[in-house]
């Protein structure tokens, strides 16, 4: 069982291979959410842009529906992880960046997906991994059925991409 090609990928797909940008740079970026629920698809849109962004050359960029335990494998090989998600509680279009403490715990029992802290804890428990983990979230304006972002969140998308790139660049200098 190899590690190559995991994840839904951030770009178009074809037979026989993953389309995600994957490299050995030690940076993992995961945009996640439901791409058929308007602004919940923010993570997918951001991942698609970041996969093409030269500032993230060498990074692994994935788009996922959820944070699943399998991502702990990818996380264990990274020194920096950035998770991009929509937020139902923040003001629409507002971007918030949070560092996930590697010592924090997964607070709740779960079914087939994890919260960021749970994923960090799983990677730490199973592989001794302790990457720097950041979440970048954006407040939603709409979670209605639809495959397009609301104007408010669409407008915030370039800033989300820049925010992720800044985290990656800063981590690279550290």
């Amino acid at each position, binding site marked *: 069982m190899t590690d190559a090609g995991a994840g*839904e990928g951030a770009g178009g797909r074809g037979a026989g291979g993953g389309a995600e940008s994957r490299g050995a740079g030690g940076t993992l970026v995961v945009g996640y959410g439901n791409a058929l629920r308007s602004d919940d698809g923010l993570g997918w849109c951001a991942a698609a842009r970041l996969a093409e962004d030269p500032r993230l050359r060498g990074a692994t960029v994935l788009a996922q529906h959820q944070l699943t335990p*399998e991502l702990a494998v990818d996380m264990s090989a990274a020194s920096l992880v950035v998770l991009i998600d929509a937020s139902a509680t923040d003001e629409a279009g507002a971007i918030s960046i949070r560092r996930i403490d590697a010592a924090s715990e997964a607070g709740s029992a779960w079914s*087939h997906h994890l919260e960021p802290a749970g994923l960090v804890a799983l990677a730490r428990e199973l592989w001794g991994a302790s990457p720097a983990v950041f979440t970048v979230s954006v407040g939603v304006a709409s979670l209605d059925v639809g495959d397009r972002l609301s104007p408010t969140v669409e407008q915030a998308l370039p800033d989300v991409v820049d925010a992720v790139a800044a985290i990656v660049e800063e981590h690279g200098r550290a």
Partner: protein
Amino acid sequence: MSRTIVIDPVTRIEGHSKITIQLDDRGEVVDAHFHVTQFRGFERITQGRPVHEMPALMARICGICPVSHLVASAKAVDDILAVEPPPTGVDLRRIINLGQIVQSNALSFFHLSSPDLLFGFDADPAVRNILGVARQNPQLAKDGIALRRWGQQIIEWVAGKRIHPEGIVPGGVAWPLTAEVRDRILDGVPEAIAAVERAIAWYKTDMLRWEDEAATFGNFRSAFMALVDRDGNVDHYGGWLRVVDADGKYLADRVDPKLFNDYIGEAVEPWSYLKSTYWKAMGYPDGIYRVGPLARVNVADRMGTPRADEELEKFRWRVGRVAGSSFHYHYARLIDTLHSIEKIEQLLRGPDILSKHVRSIAGINRNEGIGVSEAPRGTLMHHYKVDDDGIVQWVNLVIATGHNNMAMNRSVLQVARSHVKGTTITEPMLNRVEAVIRCYDPCLSCSTHALGEMALHIQLLAPDGAVLDEIAR
């Protein structure tokens, strides 16, 4: 005065449901119902759509096992087109379907059920989860993650993406397999086999710990149904329907799956959106049968691959030729997974697996089509009717969780009778009622069509609806 206990919702299954337990005047359990409380209605949504769209639409029913619906739907459309996919197209569909079986079985056993098995059903829920498993038995957690990942990778590499893949189409598959992908999958086979065999060894070592649960978790006589090939081996893609009773006697064998309506009826109860299917010859509700991994190992003569057959022999030595307790779904699920990995390897080593002929093209040649396959949770049936232009007029889906509905209800009743004492809700009862449902790994998203994750809520109600006791977590 009779009372009702309500568990709403049930946790660590796929979809929304609740459980009510009816008590009589003496506080004894007299009945129990597993309610599926949400509705999505794909049978109606798809009416009016071109039939070629059906596989892609039906895959959207579920994010856990979209491949299963893709396979059954594509087969139903094949039937309407009156085409036979090229042999390599069929083999690639089989590989994708088996990848789905591996990843879904891994999710069910390792991620959803192993916390109960490792820590015990009464352990603190704060510990009884995947993180707890990672701490207590890291190899078990790693194996579960690796198996699920490998199954998902197979789907992605062969069918285009892990969730809602596009690689299975009417008439076959959308593109041929490359040697590079074949070899990449084959490279993972030894480790996948080692992972599931470690889990089987662990399970067998600890089996005695769960004797009490095995005795009361849906331990009753019923029929079992699954697909088998011409030699009586498990067949996850095609073959014939076989139904055996609790003693292993054939109720039906070599039944063309397209004739399933002659044998299976569907009943609707007012308390659930989930239909109850039943064996027509025995009537409703007596015609109870089970499907899924336990049914597959009970129904088939053999698994059809060497390592899985060896484990099947041990399984039958331990729990009998026809295992009656639904607790043994866990054990059967592991053997089913082992077989799937071996079968994937067999198919990939086939001489024509890289053939470029993977799809047959045709127009609308029939107004009705049926596709049947084995999903991780059991036999899955798609039945469509179209007009002469191929526009969908009518759809019926018979889903594994529907086949198991009556068995799940009976299982809840049995557990409740063993653990409900008095008129208060106890943690041991709550934990076991949930766990018995989890044995079936019900996927309510497709059976009824729900979405999301559940918390837990139990109410004890008087006949007038007054809440006598309540637990939420």
